[in-house]
């Protein structure tokens, strides 16, 4: 058996002491207490994070390029044909542009140039798929505040700003279980709530049984959402889960972005309501 002296200098005693101290820290979770330390570490690590992220993206692109060499010849031929077809379609573009303006007016969607955007690069990401966040290289000193919406270039809603530090910020993605957004079916105007499910998809729920939703419908942000402009694409309905004895119906949405592919995002700092 252990003598008193041996026990306190043993590995087991160290393990128990560490477990007690850090177990209590986890239990009481003084998260904000560590925020100043986080800020300092993030500022110090910022250039390295950006470099590592850029290097890995560059390596991935080179890898993708090497693996795609075989396909390039075929694609080249195909693209020559496509150029011919595009030339003819270009003529129809002017008409489509007019139609687009008309549809935006009908759906009360905001023209994209009404957003005041802050472009930022993704410098870190959730590595186990349960947190569903990304970290961007802009923060308080760039005028960013908690709750601001984040989009990718095509008006696709990615998430909202969570914690904002002086030079960096955490974006809580729509796939995060903490994320809850008011949304609307762009086709039928059915209202509901979009909730993340651990990166396994997103759920468009709390939709009244009387409202019509169908597979393939686009789900966009609604005007009820705080700080989020209406009309940003959240997802496309992939599956409807409905039963007669439930008050609400829900749908599984296909996410229009892949977190691991996000390299640049835009934070909407201001928009015209």
């Amino acid at each position, binding site marked *: 058996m252990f003598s008193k002296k041996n026990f306190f200098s043993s590995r087991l005693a160290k393990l128990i002491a560490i*477990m007690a101290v850090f177990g209590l820290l986890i239990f009481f979770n003084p998260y904000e207490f560590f925020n100043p330390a986080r800020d300092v570490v993030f500022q110090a690590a910022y250039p390295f994070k950006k470099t590592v992220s850029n290097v890995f993206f560059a390596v991935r692109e080179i890898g993708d390029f090497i693996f795609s060499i075989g396909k390039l010849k075929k694609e080249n031929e195909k693209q020559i044909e496509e150029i011919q077809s595009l030339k003819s379609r270009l003529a129809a573009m002017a008409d489509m542009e007019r139609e687009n303006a008309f549809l935006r007016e009908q759906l009360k969607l905001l023209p994209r140039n009404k957003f005041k955007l802050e472009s930022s690069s993704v410098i870190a990401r959730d590595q*186990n798929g*349960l947190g569903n966040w990304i970290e961007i290289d802009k923060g308080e000193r760039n005028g960013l505040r908690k709750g601001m919406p984040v989009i990718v270039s095509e008006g696709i809603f990615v998430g909202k700003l969570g914690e904002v530090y002086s030079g960096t910020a955490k974006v809580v993605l729509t796939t995060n279980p903490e994320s809850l957004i008011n949304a609307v079916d762009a086709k039928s105007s059915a209202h509901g709530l979009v909730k993340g499910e651990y990166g396994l998809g997103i759920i468009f729920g709390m939709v009244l049984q009387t409202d019509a939703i169908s597979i393939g419908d686009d789900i966009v942000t609604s005007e009820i959402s705080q700080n989020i402009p209406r009309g940003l694409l959240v997802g496309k309905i992939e599956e409807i889960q409905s039963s007669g004895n439930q008050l609400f119906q829900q749908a599984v949405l296909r996410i229009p972005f892949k977190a691991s592919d996000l390299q640049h995002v835009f934070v909407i700092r201001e928009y015209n309501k």
Partner: protein
Amino acid sequence: MKKNLFLFLFFFLIILVQTSGLGIFFPERVVPNLVLAFVLAGAITFGFSETWKWAIAAGILMDIFTYSRVGFYVLLFVLSAYFAGFLSRRFLLESRVLGVLAAGFLMISSALAERIFLFFLNEAGNTQRFFDFMPEIFSDAGYWIIFNLALFFPSLYFCKKIRKFLKPSEYKIDARVKSGNF
């Protein structure tokens, strides 16, 4: 001092690669844990008594970098290092094959423990939600285990190289013990 600085910079670099780099290469939810692999490999190579301080430092940095509750990765790394140290004394010296299998098993169980504990922390211990999500959360487990093991064994090799670099005299003694020429 030089050794501590070297190890700090090494772990800092590994954590940067983990949080800013690996997520770009691997699909979501199957990103292996390089830091865990190095903590385990370090505990097997150097023993728990030399690794626990580094497990705490790496855990705190990891908690900060991943926006987790401070303490979560500390506990995971220290516990894993403890069992790795225990296993290395029991198995690694007795049989190489058994040792490699035990180390691989430990890597897989630590990585699984990370995922399960993280889920419980997010859901404030809601077991029903865990059982609801379990099939989907572990649907990619096969790839994820392979990726983790694929990172773990090179990490073990790399740690031995670090040991040779940091403690060449001990390494020579160890090598002589193994070859029976001591």
